[in-house]
């Protein structure tokens, strides 16, 4: 194994007029080093002006998503040795505006997420004093997979539909809507469907499937979206057949 590997890191300063471009850094190639370790080495030893987000280093916080050799990855889970002999390209997540260097602006997602009401909605007036909502292991299993989302934005970076049409509400938001729909304690499916039945909702998706492939937590947003389409279509047919019925 070589002692070093070249990292080609995208740099961009908002106060400079030049477009983003790569800068090359030689970092030690160690078996246990991830792309994030390489970036931290650059920041500590080579160039302290480099900006990037990170926190937990163990695939839980969802902060360190970047495009590594063109693939959206958590940089803490992408090992440098897998890209040897290099060079390894490190770019900001695709489809998002760049704030600086590898830092992206995800405010678009932050505006979209509350639209699908990702919280438990109840019709009754039960308060904490009345006790907890009980749930069987089977009821937990129904939605658990979709609850693993860490909002890392890899699915948005992988989705060509979101790249072409930023109005598309996107994979993670729909997966989280499905997470609450499938929750036995929740009664808000109807309210979420009103948002997701629109063109920018589930119908924007053309089932490329890349969101599911890149998801580091195996959430399978593509499946959530297709299941929502079935729900939306069933609802439309019902509304057509029973126009006066209670929807």
């Amino acid at each position, binding site marked *: 194994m070589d002692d070093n590997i070249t990292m080609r890191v995208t740099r*961009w300063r*908002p*106060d400079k007029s030049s*477009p*983003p471009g790569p800068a090359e850094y030689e970092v030690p190639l160690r078996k246990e080093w991830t792309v994030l370790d390489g970036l931290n080495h650059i920041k500590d030893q080579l160039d302290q002006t480099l900006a990037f987000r990170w926190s937990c280093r163990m695939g839980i916080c969802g902060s360190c998503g970047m495009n590594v050799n*063109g693939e959206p990855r958590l940089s803490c889970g992408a090992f440098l040795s897998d890209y040897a002999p290099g060079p390894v390209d490190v770019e900001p997540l*695709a489809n998002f*505006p*760049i*704030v600086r260097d590898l830092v992206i*602006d995800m405010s678009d997602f932050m505006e979209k997420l509350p639209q699908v009401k990702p919280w438990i909605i109840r019709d009754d007036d039960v308060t904490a004093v009345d006790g907890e909502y009980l749930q069987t292991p089977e009821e937990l299993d129904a939605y658990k997979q979709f609850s693993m989302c860490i909002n890392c934005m890899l699915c948005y970076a992988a989705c*060509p539909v979101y*790249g*072409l049409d930023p109005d598309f509400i996107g994979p993670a938001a729909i997966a989280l809507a499905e997470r609450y729909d499938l929750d036995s304690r929740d009664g808000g499916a109807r309210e979420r469907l009103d948002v997701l039945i629109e063109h920018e909702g589930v119908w924007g998706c*053309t*089932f*490329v*499937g*890349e969101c*599911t*492939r890149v998801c580091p937590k195996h959430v*399978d947003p*593509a*499946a959530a979206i*297709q*299941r929502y*389409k*079935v729900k939306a279509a069933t609802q439309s047919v019902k509304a057509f057949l029973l126009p006066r019925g209670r929807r």
Partner: protein
Amino acid sequence: MSTYAPYRRPLSTWWWLRKRSYFLFVMRELSSIFVAWFVVFLLVMITAVGRGRSSYETFLDFASSPAVVVINVVAAAFLVLHVVTWFALTPQAMVIQVGGRRVPGAAILASQYVGLAVVSAFVVWLVTR
């Protein structure tokens, strides 16, 4: 807080050539044109049959012209792509519960091919009997 505008990267026209999965996706979208072509082709054939022998023979001449044969071969290839990818996606979209247990994706996939084989066999029988 910074007042600088974030940088929006332009999307290349050739983004769909960057990855195999993107290319396959665009080809699958394109395949819908060929599905439509076969529908029109079938409707034209049925109309020709309805108009009698000479009309049908004119249609056969049209259908056997080299250009139409080439189009049909290409269209058939796209149709195969359409069917295979569509079938492959179904298990993700369908959650079928039998006796409280989820039917595995492979079983859903296999049942679609069995269904296709049965329908195809029926059509072959109908045409050749």
